[in-house]
Structures are given as C-alpha cells and as structure tokens.
C-alpha cells in the first residue's frame, strides 16, 4: 500500500487529520453508491429467489433457483443473449476501426480542428432516443430518405437481420465519437520525435502505425474497448425505439424490461437482472485478466 505514511504506526497529528478528512470527504459518495447499488442488487438476488407476480403480490413465495432454471432453459433468454453478443461484438469491432480513423483525423487534420471536434461531440452528446427516432424515421417506408433508396416494399426494421444491422448502425453512429476521443487521448501519448525518426529511417505510414502507434496506444485501446464492450452489452434505448425487440431483435436488457413491465413478473425479471449483472462481471474480469486492461482507477495508484 503506497497510501501508508512512511513512518510506520506512529501517525503524526497532521497525518491523522489528513486521514480523517479523507474519509470524511469520501463518506457521502460511498454511502450513496452503496445504498443505491449494493443494497438493491442484494435485494434483486432475494427477489429472484421468489415466485413474485406483481398482479398477485400476496402470493409471493420462496422458490429457490426455479426462476434461474426457467430463464436459462428458455429460448427467449438465449435468443436475446446471442442477439446481445452479436450487437456487442460487431458494433465494438466497427467502432474500433472507425474510431481509430476518426481519432487520427482529429489528431492530424491540417485545419478545422475545432470544427471537427465540435461536430463529433454531437453524436456523443445527443440523447440516444432522439438519434434512434431519426434512424427509425429514415428507414420507415414512405417517410424516410434512406428507405427510398431501398427496393419498393422493403421495410428493413420489420425483418430480423436487416433490423439487427440497423441497430448496429445506430449504435456505431452514436458511440464511435466516444471511442475516438478515448483513442485520441492515447494518440497524444505517442511522441512526435519517434514517428519522425521512423519516417527518416524509411518506415511507411502503415509501418509507423502498426509498429509504433498501436503498441504505444495499447493501454488506451484496451480501456476504450472495455468501456464500450460493457456499454454495448447493456444496449436498450436504440432497440426499444427502433424495433421494441420485435422479430427477435431484443437484447437481454429488453428481455428483462419486458418481463418486468409487460409480464409483470418480478421474480423472473429479477433473475434476468442478476444474470445480466453476472455476464457484465465476466466480461470485465476477462478483459482485466486476459488483456491486462489497466482499470482506469489503477492509474491513481502511482
């Protein structure tokens, strides 16, 4: 622990005061975070072990792991799970490539630097629901400009695969700028002199990118990937507006929402909530263990 003062147990008055102030300042944030996340997730686990139909709250009873059995043996869960994995994998992969391009443009463009940065902040900042409506109207036959480009009678949002790709498109449009900004921060860490030296030595642009920039940017890339993967896995807004999960386009979050608010089944809904929580935990753990992604908090250690 680097936090410990050097002089062992004998804390000076100043150090003790500092320590007290540190706890005091953190306490409200810690209490809020614990009360609003740790306690409810515990409560979700408890609810998930009950048969609990909101229409008959009096008949709630303990059923052990039955809800988990019901969810995990249901094709709805697995359909939603694969759809979510597909959307996550494909959109994050596209975003990484596009985001890298966008970061390079922002970093190296000769003019309009401010304009470019302002423009790409708009997809980042815009309300997801607003963007989703824009895409939905664009792809609606007889209404949208993009639907006009398609053969007569095509309604891409009403078929599973076209709809999934359009969901990916909406997701990519909205979140590529965020990815690009995280990568831009990594690009700033690549020293210009190294690149120039490589150029003098005759390295091509591609060689400079692969041999120098990518390795130096690895920490930034991993953080960006981790954040975006977890974020994509939680996808809800875009799907809710674009297809509402029809034609097997629903993500696990959509499934959880539907079980809660359409089927009014608090027990099953909570079991899905807990399963999603576990999935997210597995993804985060895999990233940290497999790729050694430094958690953004780790930097504070020094």
């Amino acid at each position, binding site marked *: 622990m680097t936090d*410990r003062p050097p002089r062992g147990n004998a804390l000076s008055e100043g150090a003790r005061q500092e320590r007290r102030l540190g706890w005091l300042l953190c306490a409200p944030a810690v209490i809020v975070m614990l009360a609003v996340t740790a306690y409810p997730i515990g409560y979700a686990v408890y609810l998930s072990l009950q048969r609990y139909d909101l229409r008959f709250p009096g008949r709630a009873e303990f059923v052990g792991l039955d809800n988990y059995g019901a969810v995990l043996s249901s094709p709805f869960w697995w359909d939603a799970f694969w759809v979510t994995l597909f959307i996550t994998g494909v959109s994050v992969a596209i975003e990484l490539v596009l985001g890298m391009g966008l970061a390079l443009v922002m970093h190296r463009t000769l003019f309009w630097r401010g304009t470019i*940065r302002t423009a790409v902040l708009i997809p980042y900042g815009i*309300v997801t629901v607003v963007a989703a409506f824009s895409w939905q109207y664009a792809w609606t036959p007889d209404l949208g400009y993009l639907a006009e480009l398609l053969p007569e009678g095509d309604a891409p949002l009403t078929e599973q695969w076209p709809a999934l790709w359009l969901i990916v498109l909406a997701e990519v449009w909205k979140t590529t700028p965020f990815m690009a900004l995280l990568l831009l921060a990594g690009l700033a860490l690549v020293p210009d002199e190294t690149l120039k030296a490589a150029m003098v030595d005759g390295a091509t642009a591609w060689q400079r990118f692969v041999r120098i920039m990518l390795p130096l940017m690895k920490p930034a890339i991993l953080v960006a990937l981790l954040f975006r993967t977890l974020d994509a896995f939680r996808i809800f807004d875009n799907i809710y507006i674009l297809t509402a999960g029809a034609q097997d386009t629903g993500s696990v979050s959509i499934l959880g929402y539907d079980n809660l608010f359409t089927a009014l089944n608090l027990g099953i809904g909570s079991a899905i909530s807990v399963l999603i929580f576990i999935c997210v935990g597995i993804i985060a753990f895999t990233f940290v263990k497999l790729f050694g992604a430094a958690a953004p908090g780790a930097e504070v250690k020094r």
Partner: protein
Amino acid sequence: MAAVGKTHATRWAIVNVVVVLYALFPVWWIAALSFKDPSTLTDGSYIPTDWTLENYKGIFETSEFTRALINSIGIALIATLIAVVLGTMAAYAVARLRFPGKQLLIGMSLLIAMFPPISLVSPLFNIERIIGIFDTWPGLIIPYMTFSLPLAIYTLSAFFREIPWDLEKAAKVDGATAAQAFRLVIVPLAAPGVFTTAILVFIFCWNDFLFAISLTSTESARTVPAAIAFFTGSSQFQQPTGSIAAAAVVITIPIIVFVLLFQRRIVAGLTSGAVKG
C-alpha cells in the same frame, strides 16, 4: 510542415467534410422532419418544402411535453448538482490526501461505472414503490446521481491532479488547516474542472431513458426522452411523427449549445479521466 501541398490540403478538406456530414446528418434529418407540415411529412426530402412551426406550437400546447421538459430540466440539474458536490469532495480526497481505503473507493466507482442499469431497475422499482418515491423527482434523481458519481469522481480527480500543490502548501504554511486549504485555495482553482464535469454529468442525466420509463408512470416525473416514446397523435388517425421530431429537436438544443460553447472543455474532460497517468 511549412509547405503543404495543394492536393494534401484538398484531401484533408474532403475527409473533414465527410466527418462533419457523418456527425450531423441524422440530426439534420430529424430537424427537417420537425419543420414539415403533415401533408409533406412523407415526401422524404432533406429540406422541407413548406416550412412550418405547427409541430412546435403543437407540443408546447400540451402538458404532456411541457411538463416533461420541466421534469427533465429540474431532475437533471438537481442530480448534477448533488453528484458534482459529492464527487468534488471524494475526488479531492483521492487526488490530494493519503488515507487507507482509497483503492477501495476507486474500485467501487469503477464497478458502478460498469454496472448494468437494467439490473437495478427491478429492485429499485419495488423499493421505490414501498418507500413511496416511485414516479417522483427523487425517484429519478437518486439513480441518476449515483450512476454519474463515478464519471464525476474520475474526471474531477484527473483535473485536481493538475492543480499546483504548492499553493495549497503555501496556504498551510500560512496557518490554514487542511479543510481551509480545500475551501479557500483549491475550490477556486478547481472551478473550471468542476464546471466541465457538471456538463458531462448533465448530458448523462439528460440522456437517460431506461430509468425514466421504468421508474415513472405518469406525467409527474416523466422526462422528455420517456415522454416522446409515449407520444400519441392529436387524433387517432394522425401519426405523432411531427410532434416527436419537434420534441426531439427541443431537447437536442441544450446539447448543441454545450458542444458549441465548451467543445474544448468537454474533449479535455472526456479524455483526461480515461487515460491520463
């Protein structure tokens, strides 16, 4: 880099135009829809042939939208205020003080940053109904400020690490306590970082949809993103497309204003928290 070839410049100009078009096109499209009257709504053109403000007049005449707008502004502002105050305190401690448990705090905020909101929806829905804050402002403010706290703590502690230590030390030498040094020296220096964080947190709260549709049931706390998803046409034969487009544009305006005025700060805020160090 003194002599830049003409073709080089042209190439960058094309790339830049493509990027700007990419970013703005969907926004332009929904704005165009919002200015079309019902008869030309379906013409599919990028520029309205007959400009009209009817859609905007329409939404501002209904409490369905105006009430939601007030809810959105109020809830996002209050949640931002609380998150930034709590975040500032915690980030100051993280950036400046030595105390056991710091790593725990950082780990915990990281966990919450990764937390899937849907996992909280079912328990919060039940808890809020039991304690009576379901479908109220606090019912949304509480999850918003919690989920934006990690963002606030990261961004702020990154900013705080840039602040010159010496000034604080000087204040302490002059006899100020640690608390006074915080209040009188660091807070004014930290104001730009705090302001930037506030913008990011506000955008986060303004954007939320899942909590907004799950933890509300009437107009009394429903925010705009949730409200427009439930818009119905003014008659049963009319699609609400125009109204939705107009409402969508209205809630995009603050985002555009922030981005235009504070582009530099927002970029700095988003990039500093993530990679620095």
